[in-house]
């Protein structure tokens, strides 16, 4: 029983992280329909940025997180302006190839700048874990979970309750009509990509210190993010959030009670099942056509 409770605690901790990775990508892949292979690299960028601010510049960890999020916002904006804006109207395959190229360039630049040896960041949180009965978790991971939930809520409000969010939704539902209604469509594209990117950087900034930071850390993050978005339904923030927790639960219980060799396969088995039974994702609403 105590093992089960620990698995559930781990699920919450890991699920928060997965959800954060998922909502950033659901904005870009789900709403903008850009197959964003740079998502994992922005995650890595956020982590290295925190390393730079904390370990090289010697500033506070808590200060480093918003700075890294801001840096991710800017980098995302630059990628959109330089790579995606000229590709507007190009088909999805062409854009995908450009994004694969961008991913390779980013990952190799990270290795060139920082080297292949993993980096670690010290945080103000105590190294001894927080113990509640049979369950034990690190303070840092509890903080990461809280921050993840905060960012998810902020994104939800931004997309569903603000004027900017309404413009975003309108633009990707019908670009021409939105444009006629006075929405600056070009700016909305850049803003959406930048916001999605900043969420990836936020995930990296929060998780880099919890794990170790290395140039290839984005590969697996990117893979999981795509899985979560497909699981939750494209463009659905609530879906991506719940999808993140479902994936974490599947991995935890799969590794705990079935076989750890298939830990990473568990999530994908669920996705195959979802695609077979409900191909639009678990939480997709009926799409308006026309």
């Amino acid at each position, binding site marked *: 029983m105590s*093992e089960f409770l620990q698995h559930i605690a*781990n699920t919450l901790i*890991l699920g928060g992280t997965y959800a954060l990775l998922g909502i950033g990508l659901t904005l870009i892949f789900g709403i903008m329909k850009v197959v964003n292979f740079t998502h994992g690299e922005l995650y890595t960028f956020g982590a290295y940025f925190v390393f730079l601010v904390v370990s090289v510049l010697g500033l506070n960890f808590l200060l480093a997180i918003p700075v890294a999020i801001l840096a991710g916002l800017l980098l995302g904006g630059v990628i959109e302006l330089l790579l995606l804006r000229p590709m507007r109207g190009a088909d999805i395959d062409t854009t995908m190839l450009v994004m694969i190229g961008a991913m390779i360039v980013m990952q190799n630049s990270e290795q060139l700048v920082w*080297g292949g040896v*993993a980096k670690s960041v010290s945080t103000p949180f105590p190294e001894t874990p927080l113990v509640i009965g049979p369950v034990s978790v690190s303070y840092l991971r509890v903080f990461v979970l809280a921050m993840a939930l905060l960012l998810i809520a902020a994104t939800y409000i931004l997309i569903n309750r603000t004027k900017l969010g309404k413009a975003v939704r309108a633009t990707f539902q019908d670009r021409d009509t939105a444009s006629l209604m006075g929405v600056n469509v070009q700016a909305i594209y850049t803003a959406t990509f930048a916001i999605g990117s900043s969420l990836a950087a936020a995930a990296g900034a929060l998780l880099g210190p919890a794990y*170790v930071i290395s140039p290839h850390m984005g*590969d697996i993050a990117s893979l999981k993010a795509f899985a979560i978005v497909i699981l939750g339904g494209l463009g659905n923030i609530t879906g991506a959030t719940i999808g993140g927790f479902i994936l974490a639960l599947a991995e935890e219980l799969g590794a705990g009670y079935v076989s750890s060799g298939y830990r990473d396969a568990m999530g994908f088995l669920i996705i195959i099942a979802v695609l077979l039974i409900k191909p639009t994702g678990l939480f997709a609403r009926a799409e308006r056509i026309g």
Partner: protein
Amino acid sequence: MSRFRLLAGAAAFAVLAGTAVAQETIKIGVNEPLTGPFAASGTYVVNGARIAADEINAKGGVLGKKVELVIEDNKSNPTEAAAVTEKLVTRDKVPVIMGAWGSSLTLASMPKLMEYQVPMLVETSSSGKITTSGNPYIFRISPPSSVEAAAFKPMVPKMTIKKVDFLVINNDWGRGAAEDFGKMLKGENIQVGLVETMDQAAQDMSAQLAKIKASDADTLMVTTAVEQLTLVLKQAAALGMKKQIITTGGSQNPDQLIAQAGTAANGTIHLATFAPWQPDATPNPQAAKYFIGEWKKRGFEFPGVTESFRGYDGIRTIAAAIQKAGKAEPEAIRAAFWDVDVKGLNGDIKFQKQGPAGKESGQSVPNVYLIKIDDGKVVVPTM
């Protein structure tokens, strides 16, 4: 037109000059992971190899020619490792290769060695299969898991171990280690409990660790490279795990663990293949001091020494084989490997026959040490 001919002439000259220079060197192929999950380790090995090549060349090279390393990145990916081996042999025409760090990377390269009949010195891989599958082009200087397990055997009764769980990287290296150590421990009447695996790129092992925490074993043996090991130690500490942790495989880089896992590394025990903390106590103090000095002089970080010494020993062993062969040709080098006797940083390098008769691989038997991290320092426990 005349300008075109001038350019063409210059290009032709450059090509000819290039081959002229190339003829004066002896090429050694180096197939290592320089990107991907094992990038750090592979880079260490390559930097160690460079120190050896520079040292050899400063002393006049081999057979009167300079040694030239042709270094290729296998991206921590077995498919790429096989492609790199093929490229080194067919395009660069190297007569001998060093590689490929990980067991799965080496195993993927091995059929290519058979196909092109080029020998490879294996510097890091631990899987038993590498030297027992009947590939006569393989010469290994790192200890296979069975040798590590045998070296650990006399230490076991002096430790308090009743039941062991395993957490290993899910590839030939990790699974091989769990098998060989499990066999040895059962022979010592120690129970073997869970055998859990982790994907080589995985960053979160808390599910496996939660299961291991709940088991009744008193000891956890972990086999993986330093980066994932750091995560395992940190996550085990976060779960409040109190078991004795012993690691195998020789890629633990204890100083890096101390720096990155912090207090989570305290109390952990490691089977290492080189102990650079006390160069005087190593089998070859003079060479060890030279290598460590050169490593620091080049501005590399000290923790890398426990990994990079293999690249250094590997290239020196290859150079000795070429010298013995008298010519830089694959078959002559392969035959000469059987006669080398190199003073390695971790004991004498001499190859013994392993595997099916008639197509044996070469295996050198290096020393294995037990070290402990105590209060943020590496100590050699007396037993």
